[in-house]
């Protein structure tokens, strides 16, 4: 009976997944192989992807940078957060989540007006005569329209997705395990490297996944903060659907290759970690 009730309760979600995840994915695969195209079934869309190798490399490198920075910033934050009293934790969690209450696009636009040559940061530095230190001709720092600005945009937007899973895993570590280690003579470095870090790995892995995947496929961030100078995979796919060359088949093929590469990278990474299923957002 219980089993049957569970199944009924799960039905709406399963239906949702089928309609909005499984069927679209299936269509991507079909289109990538030339379904509904003039040529019919073809592998042609895949054979021309090699010319985009530079863009693939660029996207993966920038996304890796963003993920690494998120990990360096996010892990200590999550670690100390998990050791705080409940009131502080609640407050800190709200502050971490707060930016997500605003639309992603609006936040990225705000970074544009912060980083511009005539933007808030440069205007502030000018107001305090900071640029006088560099001689008369320097009037601003070039921040926007650089790969650095793109990475910054990724880190800013996706950092909460690194902190929260790590936090929830560290939070669940049994304090008695740590005490036992201390009783057996482990110093704090050993406790961290032998006990806490290995136990928090599932959170780290899920955090990496949740930062890396949206970073590698973003297209808004590179357009707004990269000035359209650094083309990323997301931009390339966007071009196939809404650019001057309308080619959903090639777009699907690029998407598919990207998904396979990301999945391969994740699978490889998960081999080094323990059970992924323990790590969840909360």
């Amino acid at each position, binding site marked *: 009976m219980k089993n049957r009730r569970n199944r009924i309760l799960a039905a709406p979600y399963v239906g949702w997944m089928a309609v909005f995840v499984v069927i679209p994915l299936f269509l991507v695969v079909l289109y990538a192989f030339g379904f509904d195209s003039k040529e019919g079934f073809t592998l042609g869309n895949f054979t021309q992807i090699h010319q985009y190798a530079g863009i693939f490399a660029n996207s993966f490198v920038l996304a890796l940078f963003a993920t690494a920075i998120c990990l360096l910033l996010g892990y200590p934050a999550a670690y100390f957060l998990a050791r705080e009293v409940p009131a502080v934790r609640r407050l800190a969690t709200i502050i971490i989540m707060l930016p997500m209450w605003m639309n992603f696009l609006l936040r990225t636009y705000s970074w544009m007006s912060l980083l511009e040559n005539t933007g808030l940061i440069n205007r502030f530095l000018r107001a305090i005569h900071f640029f006088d230190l560099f001689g008369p001709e320097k009037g601003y720092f070039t921040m926007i329209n650089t790969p650095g600005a793109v990475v910054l945009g990724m880190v800013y937007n996706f950092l909460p997705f690194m902190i929260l899973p790590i936090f929830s895993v560290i939070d669940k570590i049994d304090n008695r395990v740590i005490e036992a280690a201390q009783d057996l003579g482990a110093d704090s470095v050993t406790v961290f490297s032998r006990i806490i870090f290995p136990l928090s790995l599932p959170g780290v892995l899920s955090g990496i996944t949740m930062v890396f995947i949206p970073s590698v496929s973003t297209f808004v961030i590179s357009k707004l903060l990269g000035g*359209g*100078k650094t083309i990323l995979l997301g931009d390339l796919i966007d071009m196939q659907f*809404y650019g001057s060359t309308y080619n959903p088949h090639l777009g699907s093929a690029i998407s598919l290759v990207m998904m396979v590469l990301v999945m391969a990278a994740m699978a490889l990474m998960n081999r080094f970690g323990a059970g992924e299923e323990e790590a969840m957002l909360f």
Partner: protein
Amino acid sequence: MFNWGEYIDESLLETFEEQTGIKVNYKTFPDNETLYSTLQSSMGEYDVIIPSDYMIARMIDEEMLERIDLNNIPNYEKISDSYKHLDYDPGNEYSVPYTWGTVGLIYNTTMVSEAPTSWKALWDEQYKGQILMFDNSRDCIGIALKVLGYSFNTTDEAQIKEAVDLLIEQAPLVQAYVMDQIFDKLEVGEAAMGPYYAGDAITMMESNPDLAFVLPEEGANLFVDAMCIPKGAPNKENAEAFINFMCSDEAAVANCEYIGYSTPSDSAREKLEPELAQNPIAYPDEETLSRCETFINLPEEILKLYDSEWLRLKGAGG
């Protein structure tokens, strides 16, 4: 009825319904490519669409449009001869012009040493880091083609490659490749100059009077958006009645004052508010217009070349 977002005075739809008793079902699309892909999957659902010139040419090529019976559109005679028999529909069989405009160079008078008259200003070393360009291959490569003295619609691969070489040379000077972000960047003086649409230039100049607009001497893009009837339209007669209504002075005047683009109808233009009708940005003189060229649809292999050349430029710029 399928139109661009924010591209009609919607009260006109009610007027039309009152006059004719025909119910209008109005929907919008964000760009030509979306219109194209939507029509691919839903033929026979729309009666009137408003694509741009090059997309009309593509749709004519792919037999996606119905012939329009001009006998049912008496107001067609109001359309100026300058907007008949254009490259995208030389026989005037498939489209009735809705609005038109140009692409020119918008610049900040306080940030340039002298007023630019040529697209070459976008290659001027003294404006390094102050230059914006289109983030759209057709418009961006088109500007370089004009600098070299070629046509926007060239199918000569060597010319296109030469144009992209010129853009690669320009890349270190370019601050960013943008579309609508140009509004913010030019209005606050983040950049000194960039190419964009005349109608939008008027909007930007309203918020920053230091901005100015020029149609460069090499020639510029003239675009026409026209009303068409897609193949298999369920109510072709009603569609023609609607097109006729939109060409009437009353509707054309109200519409152009609302959306700010230029009307192709001579008699409607006479009835516009003088401030708009005499604005040389919206209505440049004949001599200037003769330097302009419309986009036509390019063959598929050239479109592919645009795509790969565009990526070559972006690769070099990053």
